[in-house]
């Protein structure tokens, strides 16, 4: 099998600025703004829209040839002014692109100059206070969309978090999960009665109700006032296995304000959910609410009811590294062998983290590959002959070509309905995933059976 190839063919990742724009949509009254060509903003908008099915306005400084040669300062300032005029944001989440990064625009300096304009008497757009401007460096030739996501949130706490007396407050950095996951997180924390800051929170801004008029900035998102308090929190829980301290918002808060950072995999599966709920019990000094005990009980029951259908089925799981780690651990605990754990990301930690969670990783013959594309994954699939494919919509072509039953999770889901309402986290999210996996296997068995059993 050829593995060393130069070109990326059917990428299993997206670019840095997309993640930043998504994360910025989780801040209240924030407009994402891309410093670069118009196309970057438009492509990213259309890509996010096809998953979330919500209007997603991303401004652009719209470089032209002159801008590329002489610098983006003028365009950026004009763009900020226009966005402020039209959207009246409290926050502008500014992310860079390969273009503005490569010409070496000093965005922080430009922002300072922009602010100075108004301090020196230029009338404010709308006559209102200037929005807070958060700048994340997200060149598309570095990392992938998930790096942009974390970079935006790190820049956010670096800009806004304040020092102060410690509060009974928990920060949650949930990673790139679905709006349904975010809502579930909020429900859990409320049930534990723990004051919290969830960052980002696009559960409403990207999955809201109908409008009577155009909401230039949809309601919802983490308020700036609470983001300020992240520096005074008693701890941060961060769902990530591969995010290093330097790039992590929780890491930043720990380093700068001594807010303890609890890093853990996404709570998918019983073991990881137990770890998460256990930590909440410890931090809140409250027992697990009965509701979740019930959910756990039902899940254990379901595991028993469904185990035979899936035992020792082989699955390929792919996507962002953190999702792959958590999913693989879950699959292992229900008896499925994730024969290939693959990601387009390349933190260098994927295998290590999987080994920690799956002690028999090598023994079970589980392959781990990072920095791969779909041609790599397909090459592996031809040999591994998996029973299931688990990941985002981008695996559909492969699933169709090789006739592998396919379960869509994560982002993007653009060939199915309701990707934004899909739950992955906690006992409840695991239950939904488990049911879907078992049913996929049953459906396959049913449709490929010569008899067509109507009763399983």
């Amino acid at each position, binding site marked *: 099998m050829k593995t060393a190839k130069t070109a990326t063919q059917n990428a299993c990742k997206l670019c840095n600025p997309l993640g930043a724009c998504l994360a910025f949509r989780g801040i209240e009254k924030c407009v994402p703004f891309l410093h670069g060509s118009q196309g970057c903003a438009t492509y990213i908008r259309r890509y996010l829209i096809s998953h979330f099915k919500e209007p997603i306005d991303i401004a652009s400084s719209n470089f032209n040839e002159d801008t590329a040669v002489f610098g983006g300062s003028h365009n950026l300032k004009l763009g900020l002014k226009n966005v402020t005029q039209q959207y009246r944001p409290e926050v502008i989440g500014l992310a860079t692109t390969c273009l503005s990064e490569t010409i070496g625009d000093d965005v922080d300096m430009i922002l300072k100059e922009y602010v100075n304009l108004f301090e020196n008497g230029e009338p404010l757009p709308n006559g209102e206070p200037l929005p807070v401007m958060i700048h994340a460096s997200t060149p598309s030739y570095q990392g992938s969309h998930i790096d942009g996501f974390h970079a935006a949130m790190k820049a956010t706490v670096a800009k806004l978090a304040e020092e102060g007396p410690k509060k009974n407050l928990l920060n949650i950095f949930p990673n790139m999960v679905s709006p349904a996951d975010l809502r579930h997180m909020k429900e859990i924390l409320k049930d534990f009665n723990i004051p919290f800051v969830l960052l980002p929170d696009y559960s409403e801004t990207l999955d809201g109700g109908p*409008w009577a008029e155009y909401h230039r900035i949809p309601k919802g998102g983490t308020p700036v006032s609470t983001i300020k308090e992240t520096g005074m929190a008693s701890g941060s829980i961060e769902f990530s296995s591969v995010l290093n301290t330097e790039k992590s918002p929780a890491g930043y808060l720990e380093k700068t304000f001594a807010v303890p950072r609890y890093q853990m995999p996404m709570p998918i599966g019983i073991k990881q959910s137990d770890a998460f709920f256990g930590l909440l019990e410890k931090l809140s000094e409250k027992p697990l609410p009965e509701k979740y005990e019930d959910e756990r009980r039902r899940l254990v029951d379901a595991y028993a009811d469904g185990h035979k259908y899936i035992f020792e089925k082989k699955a390929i799981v792919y996507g962002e590294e953190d999702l792959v780690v958590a999913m693989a651990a879950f699959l292992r605990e229900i008896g499925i062998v994730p024969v290939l754990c693959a990601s387009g990301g390349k933190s260098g930690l994927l295998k290590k983290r999987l080994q920690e969670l799956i002690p028999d990783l090598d023994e079970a013959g589980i392959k781990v590959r990072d920095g791969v594309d779909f041609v790599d994954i397909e090459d592996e699939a031809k040999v591994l002959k998996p029973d299931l494919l688990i990941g985002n919509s981008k695996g559909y072509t492969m699933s169709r070509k090789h006739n592998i039953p396919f379960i869509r999770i994560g982002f993007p889901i653009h060939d199915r309905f309701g990707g934004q309402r899909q739950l992955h986290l906690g006992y409840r999210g695991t239950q939904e995933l488990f049911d879907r996996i078992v049913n996929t296997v049953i459906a396959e068995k049913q449709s490929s059976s010569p008899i067509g059993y109507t009763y399983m």
Partner: protein
Amino acid sequence: MEKIGILEGREKQVYEKKGDSAAIDIKCETTSLSGSVSQRACVFCGSRVVLYPVADALHVVHGPIGCAAYTWDIRGAVSSGPELHRLSFSTDLKEMDVIYGGEKKLHQSLTELIAQYQPKAAFIYSTCIIGLIGDDIDAVCKKVSQETGIPVLPVHSEGFKGTKKDGYKAACDSLMKLVGTGSTEGIGKYSINILGEFNLAGEAWIIKKYYEEMGIEVVATMTGDGRVDDIRRSHGASLNIVQCSGSMVKLAKMMEEKYGIPYLRVSYFGIEDMSMALYDVAKHFSDNPAILDAAKKLVNREVSELYPRLQHFRQALEGKKAAIYVGGAFKAFSLIKALNSVGMSVVLAGSQTGNKDDYEGLKEMCEEGTVIVDDSNPVELSKFVLEKEADLLIGGVKERPIAYKLGIGFCDHNHERKIPLAGFVGMYNFILEVYNSVMSPVWQFAPRKGGLS
């Protein structure tokens, strides 16, 4: 409702028709205003969309991963054979490539990909960053072409070097390098090329069948189910038929200049324009009256079958109002006629890339009070559809959620659609889709209709 204003710098891109006397003086064909959340994309997008349907060519995006990832199999341009165009190839540049240049990587990528996929030709798209770091992609393409023996064509589509329209031009320049490199043997006198028809959901097949029924030979459907070998011999055709004029007129003009092939602008949307597209071609070949006879027979047959089927929709849709915001303005003409033919009026007509003539034409066709807009954005579009009380918005993916959030029907009329809307059967599909959306009972719950927000 809070009054939404038009941004300073955009006032002249918005026009409302007031009586016949007021001349339209719309500002257009300029770059988008910074910070205006334009619905437009970039030069790369323009090139990529035009060349996308050449199905047996390798399409390699030279740059960081995003540009290739966002354009991976997102369009409905289908192929009757090879499907190389549905894959996404990128040199996926990293920081070190940006510092030291990406030429070597491009060369290696191309060598490997051509060996692996054996394409008939390769298009190499230059992205923003390539324009900056100055990779000589022409030289790399030339070298690889010599080494592999297939045409390897650079596409100068650096995102920031103009607008989407400039991307169309870059694509036409690349196609022109293929045109004229094949044998024209066996091509008859009554022959055409179909340009600017992207075979979305098989539309080019519908159109091709019509022309063939008229006794006309189709040499190349250039950018719809496109094949490299057909394009290479397309200069043997007698006539070029250009639909999406914004994207392909440049190529038609180049072919006219170099090979003396005249061209016709047509549209395949709606009964009127579709019929015209057939008659115009028949008239061009007036020395063969059988062609016109066949066209008349075809149109007669199709219309008499289609017309009664539309009446049910007309009853429901009569008096409803539509807003149109599309990429190229030329398409808007056809849409207005098509909507009028089922009794609907148009209250907003806008495009991303129209020119003065386009907007003048739209003004002529529209009723008083219609808003005509160039390079609009979500805030303006939502303002207009609400103020004008539109029942329907026609647009693409980025416009769809605007309509749905506000409780307005929507019809996808862009390159991602999976239902053919061209031709007579396409007209039926179009009106059916309009009907399905506008008449759906779900809008009763919209805040605009008294539901809760």
